[in-house]
């Protein structure tokens, strides 16, 4: 095997990493006025996980009944257990409306109402008049909303002849001598060559990292690459302890059955057929926010009311719905149940369990997607992020359904617009010498090792243990054990050994690099969860059951510590503009 890697060099004003909803929208906005933009993605764009989103995108269009962006903002703040930055939530709720119209103009095939307007349905935690009852706010295209968004944005990019570098995996961020971000280093998966992209602005829209759990709705490729790459360059990770568990993952597989199913009338039942949400959230019932429903399910299972020989799952009952509702509004998810469980949802309830779903935390940014170098006060010039890898923060401690699609598009678009202005004015930061060195040695380190630990053993232990100790319910002993476990897995990873030593399309190498990224994400998640001695939104501590606003009405920031293996936690205040924190009841 030839060991000297080939390095190619490129220059684009803006480099967008990630071709999901956030990346594609940012790319389009950044390319306005003819500015040069490259999109790098480790997958073909249409395979990004935005395409898996099912339920819908929230916007107060008021097509079915009265609705206002203020109500959407309020629901977002309350849904996030008051950890939401309210100026950001205001932007989210206001700009959702114009963003959805813009998507429609791009050709997005929304489902329609009889009067020709975009159809809307109810979704968890979305209400009218500040919490009085469910409202029709989710704009949808059957149960394929994300698919349609991704396809539509990709089509628009094709139309505008955006330059794509597909199956390019970014491994490092380039920082100039004056501390500005000035490009990325990527591995071209097909050839094994390295590429240095010199840029004035870099955008990360690299998606989530649910693969660090065993049961997850996330794709195999959601491994937190962008988060880890930024973190390794000193950017803190914000609010990592807030990870969302979605109530309805297909039993043992984690494949998602959208909240749309409950929005259309689906009911959660325990072993005796009881609609148990009546006991936990009497007003919103099965459509209470996800943290509450997941925790209620955990309680049911814990108290022995689960189904099956192991009493380890519950049921999503759709049998009472008119068959045409399943065919027209939920065709994909009913198909998932048939394909993978051989269950016919029209006549049998579907076995489900909570599944790891969405990262509320990530790279801290301002409202224009600019990354905070120190987490709260110093901008990292030239570095932008949006979407699931970022934390602006509009989801706080718990994201409402449909709000991620809003987030990726609203903030992806804002970041793109800001980049267009920024690159028009900024000069070119000098490319530091040896920009590719760190990435090359990361890869060579793995490729040159002659024996060692198998990635699969490290990965499966990580996933099993995270599922066991850092899931819906957490406590100090479990998190401490997990912290020690991650440290142990990280040292095993330092000795990781892969079989494929070639350059060409080496997915053994790609997966191994991803495992390294996941270990970083897991570590910051666990340390932040251990530090937060309260329960709020998705983060539930058995040993600290109450929300504690005096100590913890604050965003956590996890910095890389002094030694290579430690994490330092700090906090910053939440921005509160309109809605004072209150107890959260549904």
């Amino acid at each position, binding site marked *: 095997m030839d060991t000297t890697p080939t390095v190619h060099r490129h220059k684009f004003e803006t480099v967008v990493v990630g071709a999901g909803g956030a990346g594609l929208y940012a790319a389009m906005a950044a390319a306005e006025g003819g500015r040069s933009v490259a999109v790098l993605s480790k997958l073909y764009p249409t395979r990004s996980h935005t395409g898996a989103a099912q339920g819908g995108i929230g916007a107060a269009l008021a097509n079915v009944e009265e609705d206002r962006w203020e109500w959407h903002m309020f629901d977002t703040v309350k849904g996030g257990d008051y950890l939401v930055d309210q100026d950001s939530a205001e932007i989210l709720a206001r700009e959702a409306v114009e963003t959805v119209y813009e998507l429609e103009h791009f050709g997005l095939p929304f489902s329609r109402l009889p009067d020709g*307007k975009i159809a809307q349905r109810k979704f968890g935690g979305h209400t009218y008049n500040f919490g009085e009852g469910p409202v029709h706010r989710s704009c949808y295209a059957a149960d394929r909303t994300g698919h349609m968004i991704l396809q539509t944005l990709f089509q628009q990019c094709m139309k505008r002849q955006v330059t794509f570098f597909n199956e390019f995996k970014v491994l490092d961020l380039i920082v100039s001598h004056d501390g500005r971000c000035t490009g990325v280093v990527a591995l071209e998966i097909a050839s094994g060559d390295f590429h240095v992209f010199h840029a004035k602005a870099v955008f990360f829209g690299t998606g989530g990292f649910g693969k660090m759990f065993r049961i997850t709705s996330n794709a195999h490729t959601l491994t937190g690459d962008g988060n880890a790459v930024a973190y390794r360059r000193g950017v803190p990770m914000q609010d990592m302890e807030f990870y969302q568990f979605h109530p309805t993952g297909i039993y043992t597989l984690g494949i998602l059955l959208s909240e749309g199913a409950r929005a259309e009338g689906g009911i959660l039942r325990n072993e005796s057929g009881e609609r148990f949400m009546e006991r936990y959230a009497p007003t919103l019932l099965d459509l209470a926010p996800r943290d509450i429903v997941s925790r209620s399910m955990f309680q049911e299972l814990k108290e022995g009311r689960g189904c099956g020989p192991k009493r380890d799952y519950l049921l999503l009952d759709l049998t009472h719905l008119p068959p045409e509702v399943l065919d027209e509004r939920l065709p994909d998810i009913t198909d998932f149940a048939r394909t993978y469980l051989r269950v016919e949802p029209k006549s049998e309830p579907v076995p489900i369990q909570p599944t790891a779903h969405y990262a509320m935390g990530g790279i801290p940014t301002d409202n224009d997607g600019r990354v905070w170098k120190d987490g709260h006060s110093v901008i990292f010039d030239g570095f932008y992020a949006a979407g699931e890898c970022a934390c602006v923060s509009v989801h706080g401690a718990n994201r409402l359904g449909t709000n991620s699609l809003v987030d990726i598009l609203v903030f992806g678009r804002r970041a793109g617009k800001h980049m267009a202005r920024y690159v028009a004015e900024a000069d070119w930061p000098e490319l530091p010498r040896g920009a590719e060195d760190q990435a090359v040695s990361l890869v060579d380190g793995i490729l040159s090792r002659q024996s060692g630990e198998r990635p699969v053993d490290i990965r499966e232990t990580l996933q099993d243990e995270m599922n066991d100790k850092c899931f819906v319910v957490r406590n100090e002993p479990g998190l401490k054990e997990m912290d020690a476990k991650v440290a142990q897995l990280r040292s095993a990873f330092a000795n990781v050994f892969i079989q494929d030593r070639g350059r*060409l399309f080496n997915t053994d190498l790609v997966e191994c690099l991803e495992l390294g990224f996941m270990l970083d994400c897991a570590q910051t998640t666990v340390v932040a969860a251990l530090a937060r001695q309260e329960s709020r939104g998705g983060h539930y501590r058995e040993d600290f059951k109450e929300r504690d606003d005096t100590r913890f009405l604050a965003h956590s920031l996890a910095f890389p510590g002094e030694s290579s293996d430690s994490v330092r936690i700090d906090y910053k205040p939440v921005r509160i503009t309109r809605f004072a924190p209150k107890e959260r009841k549904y």
Partner: protein
Amino acid sequence: MRVTLRVRRYNPEVARDPWWQDFDLESDPRARVLDLLHQAKWYHDGTLTLRRSCAHAVCGSDTMMINGHNRLACKVLVEDVAPVIVCEPIRGLPVIKDLIVDMEPFFRSLESVKSWLINEEPPPNSERLQSPEERERFDEGTKCILCAACTTSCPIFWANDEYVGPAAIVNAHRFTFDSRDRGAAERLEVLADRTGVFKCRTTFNCTSVCPRDIPVTELIQEMKRAITFGKI
């Protein structure tokens, strides 16, 4: 259950010609073929190479020939194809390594048929209205996940890689019959060309393999009719 996973391997860094490799594996009958491939890769031979992402048939990454038919490895359960499961790359696109083919020509064909909404009229301040019936008219094509199963099972495409192929036509159909679109003429002109729809000999391979149950052949016929009779 015991199964034999037989994979057609190819790696130009190692050998000039492809070869076959068998993995004898223990599998849950309800596992996906993708799970089996992962088992082989992760526990037995790390050099085995395939694409995949979502693992539940929505991203279109892992199209391959399984026991002779183009399918998504994540949508086929082991019990339905056991005991001998033969995996090969899809045909008609250059193989890069093992089950991985070069997808660039496939994506270029989409571009050639202008599969995007064309409407330069200034949009209103809210949505463009569209009745549920108008929306229903082009629904089938919107389900396409660009997996290339159809195009790479088409004998015409194998014989002549100039043919744009079923997937591109499905995507052109999706816009041609969208009431908001004004680009039908441009698109039909491309598709009336010798590389376009009339190459189709209605062998129905595309329809039978589409993992999204899109009536591909029917949509191609509708496009032929639109060109022939000049109306949508």
